[in-house]
């Protein structure tokens, strides 16, 4: 039998994408060294693929300040200075940017008369980094019986070696998973029986025409009558279906376990405008050192949703123009 550990790297070294980020943070700390930097917090945003780090700089008053020491942060690394707040009152201040060499210049002599400065830097991360860093799993098959469909969701940090560069706190915000909630039978089971019969009548007619069957004229009359009594409005159907699968409406039938949050809802499938097969529910959670793993369920109230759709379809979709004529039961021809 093959080694079950074959596919793993021989040592659990962090991947290149992860070590690149560690490298970037180490370099930033290095650049700020004269100002005794401490990274207070680093937040990663899984959806926007960005990071934001807050550095606390300590610049002593006195002769050192006058010595005109300066720190330069090159913008080429993808780190951007978002804001600098000075002192206890968090007064925003401007930092010079050198347009020729593309770098931020922190000149100690320019700083106001206080010791602590909070610098916010932002940048982007790659999709690869996030994939290497966070493990996301969810069920494709719902459990939970016939009334409620439950989908399991799981997200975990694979590797916290990023701590080597960040000493205080980090968060991965909005770690997102798209749970595909199956609605493939919800819409079809809401279709009224008379319409199903009409579809069958149409099938019969087409088959008869193809085969050159003599009955085709009779069938055509029957089908046309059925079609005249009940006029379908495809655009209206499309509008109603998109209302029913819109986030505002659909979220009422979705419940999420703590700590997951609902982000986005959109239908998908072969003909999602008319009859969506799935509704993608994007859920998010925050991961950090305190909660490196989150796990829970998304519950979809399938039965209640189906009942309401059946009701809506009855009300507005397939409204008949006039009641069908009552036919006297005919004697069956033998």
């Amino acid at each position, binding site marked *: *039998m*093959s080694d*079950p*550990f074959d*596919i*793993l790297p021989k*040592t*659990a070294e962090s991947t290149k994408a992860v070590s690149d980020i560690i490298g970037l943070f180490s370099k930033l700390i290095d650049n700020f060294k004269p100002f005794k930097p401490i990274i207070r917090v680093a937040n990663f945003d899984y959806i926007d693929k960005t990071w934001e780090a807050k550095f606390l700089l300590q610049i002593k008053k006195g002769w050192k300040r006058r010595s005109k020491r300066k720190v330069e942060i090159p913008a080429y690394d993808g780190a951007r200075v978002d804001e600098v707040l000075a002192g206890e009152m968090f007064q925003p201040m401007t930092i010079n940017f050198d347009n020729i060499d593309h770098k931020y210049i922190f000149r100690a002599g320019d700083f106001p008369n206080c010791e602590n400065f909070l610098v916010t830097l932002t940048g982007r991360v790659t999709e690869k980094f996030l994939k290497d860093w966070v*493990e996301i*799993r*969810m*069920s*494709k*098959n719902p*459990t*939970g019986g016939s009334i409620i469909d439950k989908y*399991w969701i*799981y997200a*975990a*940090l*694979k*590797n*916290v*070696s990023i*701590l080597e560069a960040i000493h205080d706190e980090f968060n991965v915000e909005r770690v997102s998973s798209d749970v595909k909630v*199956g609605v*493939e*039978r919800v*819409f*079809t089971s809401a*279709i009224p029986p008379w*319409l*199903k019969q*009409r*579809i069958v009548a*149409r*099938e*019969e*007619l*087409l*088959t008869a*025409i*193809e*085969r*050159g069957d003599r009955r*085709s*004229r009779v069938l*055509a009359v029957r089908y046309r009558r059925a*079609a005249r009594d009940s006029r*379908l409005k*495809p655009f209206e*159907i499309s509008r109603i279906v998109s209302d029913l699968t819109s986030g505002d409406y659909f979220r009422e039938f979705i419940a999420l376990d703590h700590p997951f949050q609902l982000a986005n809802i959109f239908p998908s499938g072969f*003909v999602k405008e*008319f*009859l969506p*097969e799935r509704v993608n529910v994007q859920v998010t959670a925050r991961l950090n*050192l305190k909660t*490196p*793993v989150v*796990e829970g369920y998304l519950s979809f109230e399938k039965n209640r949703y189906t009942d309401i759709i059946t009701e809506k379809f009855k009300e507005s979709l397939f409204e008949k123009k006039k009641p069908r004529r009552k036919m006297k039961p005919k004697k069956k021809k033998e």
Partner: protein
Amino acid sequence: MHMILDSSLKFDHILITLPENMSILNLLNIEDYTTDGFTLSINKLYTSDFFGLIISQDEKLKEIHIQRQIGLQMLNKGKVVHEEKIIANFYRPFLEVVEGPKTIVITDKSDLRNLFKFTIKVVGFGKVNIKTEIDTGTDIKLVLESYFRNLLSGLFAKYSIGEDVKPDDTRFENTDWIFDRMESSMDEEDDELPLAIKQERIEGMREWIRKTKNIGKILEEASRALEALFLDLLLFQFEKYPAENVTLSYGTPAIFAERFAGSITLRLRYWDSMGTEYEPIEIPIEIDDKRGEKKPSKIPMNIEWIRNPYPILGVNDRLE
């Protein structure tokens, strides 16, 4: 699987023992480890509060449900301080033929729509995606999606019932290329669409569409065509999802032919939601075609589905 670790528990190693046919896809919060083939020895975690493993089952399941035991030991200076057996559950979907014809006799009076009837039971867990094939002995033909077939034949049917054709001006001449293309595509011998459309029909439609006075009708027909398209989509959707968790990718299987000879085999190939294909179901049927008149026909293979879900252990199962 993952474990949140109690900070009072002191350990220097974690040993994980895996059964056969399982492998580890990923490690969570594990900084250093060694392996000897069956055992994973975790030497260091990044942070001491949790660790996790993503494990997969490599063998294709024969049974509906199997259980595998994963061993976990935590050691401190060579002594076991904590021990656990973790049970992993694996499920698969399973198809079974309950009822189906062995022989079918077709006569001129046969109701072709209700000739073939099967009952198939779906057991096990999870969604199942089925593709049907009909083996006629000579070659295997995938059954075409009835959706496209109906769309085309529907168009022709619409324009050919009871409309009087009178010569008028030739406003719609520029539609000719459509008909030319239709005709030329019908000439091709390897045309896979067994549409029995007669030459006269195409001619009739070509004439009818040229009439100026038919514009109103044409517009109405266009709106009708949209409605028909919707009905076709509905029909296809009914056929595609015949039962809970069952997808028939090509809709209801059907055979298209003028005359059948000998035997055919209805084959149902199926996959689970992870894309694993299982041993297909094959239903051989002897066909005795006694029809006098040679007519091209579509004969659907009607399947009744019985769902018999497998009881899943507990509510909190983490199933993918």
